């Protein structure tokens, strides 16, 4: 099985934006993400640099602007939601008055399988 590429939640936000409508320039991306993140152009550039090194995005030089596009598909990504308590407060996971269906922490495949097993065993017992 191909190992999934690990992205931080910030990188995931940019990828998400691009999957929605690519290609995009740095200016366009900064504007689109501003309401949600308040990132400056500089922050976006730093993130894009890192992501290019990971080979998840690439760009084409069109005149003065770089037009970015994705190199991988959504199914190939694993989000590393390893956020400490303080990080979660800052990013707003704690404090948002929202009823989320799941806590956004990512789990390993083994942990997810363990959860499926709980249901499977109970279902088998029920059908016996």
């Amino acid at each position: 099985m191909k190992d999934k590429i690990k992205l931080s939640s910030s990188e995931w936000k940019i990828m998400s934006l691009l999957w929605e409508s690519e290609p995009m320039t740095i200016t366009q991306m900064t504007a689109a993400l501003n309401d949600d993140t308040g990132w400056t152009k500089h922050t976006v550039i730093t993130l894009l640099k890192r992501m290019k090194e990971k080979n998840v995005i690439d760009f084409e030089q069109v005149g003065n602007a770089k037009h970015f596009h994705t190199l991988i598909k959504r199914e190939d990504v694993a989000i590393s939601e390893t956020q400490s308590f303080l990080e979660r407060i800052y990013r707003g996971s704690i404090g948002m008055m929202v009823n989320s269906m799941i806590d956004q922490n990512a789990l390993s495949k083994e942990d997810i399988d363990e959860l499926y097993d709980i249901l499977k065993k109970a279902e088998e017992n029920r059908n016996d």
Partner: protein
Amino acid sequence: MTEAVISSSVLIIIIILIRTLFKRKIKSSVRYALWLIAAVRLMLPFGLAASPISVMNLAQNAVNTELIEETVIPTESELYIPENAPVGDKASGQYEEKHTPKLRPKQIWKIVRCFVTAIILLWFGALNIRFSRMLKKSRKELAYDAPIKIYTSSRLISPCIFGLFSPTVYIPERSAKDSEAVRYITAHELCHYRHGDLLWTVVRYVLLAVYWFDPLVWAAAILSKRDCECACDEAAVRMLGEEYRFRYGKAIIDLIPPKSSESFGIMSTSMASGKNVLKERMQFIAARPVNRISAVAVSLTAALLAAGSTFTSAQGIEKPVTSATIFPCSRFARI
């Protein structure tokens, strides 16, 4: 405030005990409802009436001390003008200096407490406005027959319901393609809506902002949130039909974002707690919830008694002690 903190602390501890003892013997909705008692108590700044079973009868000393400290009791030197003190303006000036009230520790604490509460409320407000704007920008309406609007968003990992005044369901884009998943998600979020959980979430956060210094309120917030989700799962399965129980549970697990195979050192503890909470949630979904009559009876009785002793004030609380009552002649000393 002290009374509210003491009473609510006792109440929260009792609720945690009931909840732990009767975990599998009472329905999740009963467990969740118990927290409403704590929430209401935290929202009342005072006891409702005097009663002999009030827990404040035991804590009376703590409250009385607070009342005494808050009144300015003149020290002996302030009561009597020194014999060789100069007469005239200088004397009265000196006297007034001694009487300038210094800020007592309790007053400093009150100011700090209110200041932090204000900061927290502003922070929460800003977060939610930002979240709301993000959602409104990125959402696309999903055609679905439901009493409230449903949108998809590419920015979300988890489905959610948001908006106190115009509640709206948001589903991550990748889940929206699976019509069965949409059905289970919508059922879950509608149950939150029907239970009034949107309002209770706001109450939870406001109480956290007010009682930020109280770890028991934090515990109550975390545990009540878990019970809220379990109660919602229970109601959703009831809405969908018993035959969908396991498919509903699987749909929740399908929503969890997968982590890559590397381990993350110190961060892995937060992972473990996330997994254990989900594990417990799955166990509740897997086992059909049953109310054992005896367990419910004991829980409700304990809850009623707890409410009785924590919603009421101590009996025979004396009038606040003032300097006038202790030192009646002080009036004559101030010439």
